[in-house]
């Protein structure tokens, strides 16, 4: 038996990230409490380096390595870059929040980087086991992150719930994957796909496995009825962690869907399409309707995420390249909006005070018009009002569904987003039309304020000029999914 050294070039970003985070893990031991800022700086440097590897190493063509287990294609590069950007922004937004609550520690940064590594592995996985490896790396890091504030009963409870339910979901997923392995005799995506196309696999077992795979995937994405962890985790986790949970892992989940359903099980599209329709409609319904009854903005955003993920599924279930590109555009837009929304919540919070109630937004316009305006942009984008990126995200998935001939689904989706508009607009109403209850001045670090501004303006600019991002998504998808 010979061991050929695999081509490591496609894996350079992951290798760099792993090396860097190990170095930070060790370096952090020697950094005194007063110089903890160094750890933060190293972490951001590591992210910049990873981003550099991602950009410079981009080839534009799909490459596989490790015997076909790992794939590096334009979609992976783009999604990883967005994930790295999201993590960098998230760290910047949460710095002062963490400092005020004693969370500004080495573990936090290292766990985040581990989770990011998991995301990157998942995005590039071309083999069931690699996929699972990345998934568990992400899940376990997330679990630890949620529980990071270990004195808080709420955080611990949320982590506990997430752990148990994630274990259940992993079980379902593994069960499904084992069925697929049994039917096709392979764990490699490409080979699974070929085997199904050749007709040698037993369709009954395949679809049986598919059900469990979809359930596992749906849990990661947090869509109904596998969404129950989402509100509790969003509320229970420290806001900094919530920000993380609501952004980068969604990118991984999207890649997860693309690799598994489209890449490996693409020929079963008619089977998973109907499953996704149910899940998507339920998510839009439960997400939007339940969000109305919330008084806690973190919970409200949790339900909003559920409904957004329902919309994201619309793009995937349309089963066309245009639909996948629309879904990818949607996930990028969603990550931008979610970063902004939680960024504002973090900005409003201060020592001993979490701005996590809707009432905390009352009269924000009088207290700080700039921040209120940023939040306004974010909310109208989430509601899908034109001249915001959220509008084009919804428009592109809906037109993909329309092209697939499911007009009724478009009508349902539009009605649901109509219901959703209510609670987004309520935030705006609270900010602009109500009197402030709390008149404490809002203080925030300069970098935080500038980044929030850029974040919200990006939502606006991409709403006016969405074409470059749409083109990028379409190019990534067509180049990656053709082969």
């Amino acid at each position, binding site marked *: 038996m010979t061991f050929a050294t695999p081509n490591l070039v496609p894996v350079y970003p992951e290798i760099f990230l792993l090396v860097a985070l190990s170095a930070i893990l060790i370096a952090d031991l020697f950094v005194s409490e007063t110089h903890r800022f160094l750890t933060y700086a190293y972490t951001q440097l590591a992210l910049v380096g990873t981003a550099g590897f991602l950009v410079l190493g981009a080839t534009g063509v799909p490459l596989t390595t490790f015997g076909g287990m790992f794939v590096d294609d334009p979609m992976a590069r783009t999604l990883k870059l967005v994930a790295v950007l999201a993590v960098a922004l998230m760290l910047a937004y949460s710095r002062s929040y963490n400092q005020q609550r004693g969370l500004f520690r080495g573990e936090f940064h290292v766990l985040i980087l581990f989770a990011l590594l998991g995301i990157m592995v998942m995005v590039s996985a071309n083999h069931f086991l690699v996929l699972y490896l990345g998934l568990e790396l992400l899940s376990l890091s997330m679990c630890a992150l949620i529980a990071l504030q270990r004195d808080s009963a709420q955080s611990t409870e949320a982590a*506990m*719930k997430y752990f*148990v*339910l994630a274990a*259940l*979901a992993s079980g*379902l997923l593994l069960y499904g994957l084992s069925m697929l392995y049994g039917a096709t005799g392979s764990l490699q995506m490409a080979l699974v796909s070929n085997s199904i196309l050749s007709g040698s696999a037993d369709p*009954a077992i395949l*679809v*049986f496995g598919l*059900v*469990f795979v*979809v*359930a596992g995937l*749906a*849990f990661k994405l947090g869509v*109904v*009825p*596998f969404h*129950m*962890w989402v*509100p*509790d985790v969003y509320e229970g986790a420290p806001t900094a962690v919530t920000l993380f949970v609501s952004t980068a892992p969604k990118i991984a989940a999207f890649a997860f869907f693309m690799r598994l359903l489209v890449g490996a099980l693409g020929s079963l599209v008619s*089977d998973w399409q*109907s*499953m996704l329709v*149910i*899940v998507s409609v339920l998510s839009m319904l*439960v997400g939007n*309707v*339940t*969000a*109305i*009854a*919330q008084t806690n903005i973190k919970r409200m955003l949790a339900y909003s995420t559920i409904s957004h993920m329902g919309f994201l599924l619309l793009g995937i279930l349309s089963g066309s390249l245009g639909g996948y590109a629309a879904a990818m555009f949607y996930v990028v837009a969603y990550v931008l909006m979610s970063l902004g929304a939680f960024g504002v919540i973090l900005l409003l919070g201060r020592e001993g005070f979490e701005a996590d109630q809707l009432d905390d937004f009352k009269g924000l316009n009088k207290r700080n018009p700039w921040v209120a305006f940023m939040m306004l942009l974010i909310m109208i984008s989430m509601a899908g009002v034109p001249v915001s990126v959220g509008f084009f995200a919804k428009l592109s998935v809906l037109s993909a569904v329309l092209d697939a001939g499911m007009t009724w689904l478009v009508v349902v989706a539009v009605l649901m987003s109509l*219901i959703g508009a*209510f609670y987004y607009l309520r935030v705006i109403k609270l900010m602009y039309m109500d009197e402030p209850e709390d008149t404490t001045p809002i203080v925030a670090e300069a970098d935080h304020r500038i980044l929030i501004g850029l974040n919200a303006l990006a939502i606006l600019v991409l709403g006016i000029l969405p074409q470059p991002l749409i083109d990028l998504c379409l190019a990534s998808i067509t180049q990656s999914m053709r082969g």
Partner: protein
Amino acid sequence: MSMHSLYLLVPLAPLAGSLLAGLFGRQLGRAGSHTVTILGVALSFLASLVIARDVFAGHLFNGPVYTWLSVEDITMSVGFLIDPLTVTMMLVVTFVSLMVHIYTIGYMEEDPGYQRFFSYISLFTFSMLMLVMANNFLQLFFGWEAVGLVSYLLIGFWYTRPTAIYANLKAFLVNRVGDLGFLLGIGLILAHFGSLDYATVFERAPLVAHDTIELVSGSPVSLMTVVCILLFIGAMGKSAQMPLHVWLPDSMEGPTPISALIHAATMVTAGIFMVSRMSPLFELSETARSVVLVIGASTALFMAFLGIIQNDIKRVVAYSTLSQLGYMTVALGASAYPVAIFHLGTHAFFKALLFLGAGSVIHAMHHEQDMRNMGGLRKYMPITYVTALIGSLALSGIPPFAGFFSKDAIIEAVQASSLPGAGYATFAVMAGVFVTAFYSFRMLFMTFHGKPRMDEHTREHLHESPWVITLPLILLAIPSVVAGYMAIDPMVMGNYFGNAITVLPGNGGLHVLREEWHGVGAFMAHGVTALPFWLAIAGIACAAAFYLKWTGVPDIFMARLRGLYTLLDNKYYFDRFNEIVFAGGAREVGTGLWRVGDMRLIDGVMVNGSANLVGRLSARLRRVQTGYIYHYAFIMIFGVFILMSLWFVKA
């Protein structure tokens, strides 16, 4: 300058003036505003004169100027049709408008809305010119609505007066009824002729003359009759024919120059013009012409009666306008379109003259309009008196004034008509002559003769109006005297209109009229021996007897004929009927729809109901989130079960 750009100049010069005065009125100031608008209209008038010479040299024009949109094979464009009919209207409109512009300088000198007023009347001139110059129905409709809009704005010019607001709303609503008919007519034309272009429609008209449509399924009616009656309903609104006449008397709430320009000389004649323009269509439907004849005759007579009992000087003139519009309509019904246009032209001059004369009186009397408080003004305002006398003689149809020729031509045309209803029409126009002469001289005597009845203060300040007011009076008095004498031969008897107006052989009195024509002198000689002339003289004599000599007689009549007086005083109860049935009914229906449709169905069920439903659902769904981990796990497993059963169902 080519003729083509001259055509464009005619409507655009007043528009430019209007925009300048309207948008930059404050910067231009009062003098600046009236200068630009008068310059615009004067330019337009001069251009019209040049065009008129060109047209009578035989150069007609029909073509698009600008294509607005093109859908499949229907093209909608802005275009001009320049022929004798158009040119006549252009001359009347620009001339009267120019006079009114000049007159306004004096009449409105103290009004704070001076610039606004000039902007409006110039805008009106533009709209009216677009209407008469149109070569297609769409542009006609544009002009039609635009003049309606300006009329609305000007009736309510003194917008702080509740009566003015009531009057302009009424004018607007009543015209809606007419315009709906008009629009339906245009729609029917588009549907059956496939074009909105005059030339195309007229060309195809004989081909569809015998087509029928079913308004109620099973009973076919003639297409041409339906089209013509619908178009005529539009004309009834604009030209204030019974029963859509109710807005015109109230429109006198507007400033007097407006009453002269819009509500006597030009806009109200748009209906007459339109029907003449559509003569190729109306000629094909005897039923429609019969309707036109009867409605015109009724308006001519019954509105004249109302003129007798009015005491407001402007209202007398207003009812006289209604009655004269009736005369024109009668001429249309008798297929004597050139006669209608002829009367339109002479009427425009003498009626504008009478209105501006009344305005001059009102101006001198410090906005007093009640004739019972006037009297003896002759010696204070000689120019106004003489011009008003000329106007009244013209209106009464005394030779050789303009009204005589046009009115006599109408009466003879009706006598020669053989349509159903022609007998009634003949009686109505004959009786109308007496009544017209009576009320116009009643007005003249009450205002200018007898003892002064105004208070001391007003009398001390009485004086002749400034030259800007008297100049238009004199300029209008000239055509009021000579226009009939000069125009009847070429316009009615000759081939003045060429192909602009179609009269089918055997239709109506025009042909008879032409056969009997032996020149102006003979016409006049025949006129003084005929019945209408003596009826007019009798009317004047009665007026003189009742209002100069035995001034107690009218009161005795009033007391004896209480019932008749009440009927007339309430204007035949048209307003009461409209208020109770239409306005009241509409309000009832509106309230009903609001209560049931809006409050219950839309607000109750659809808006609040759906919001309620979502809210309740939200509260329910929220409770699903119990916080217990085994509930969560159960829901996940249940989800797997659902997905799986879906697959079983499909298999």
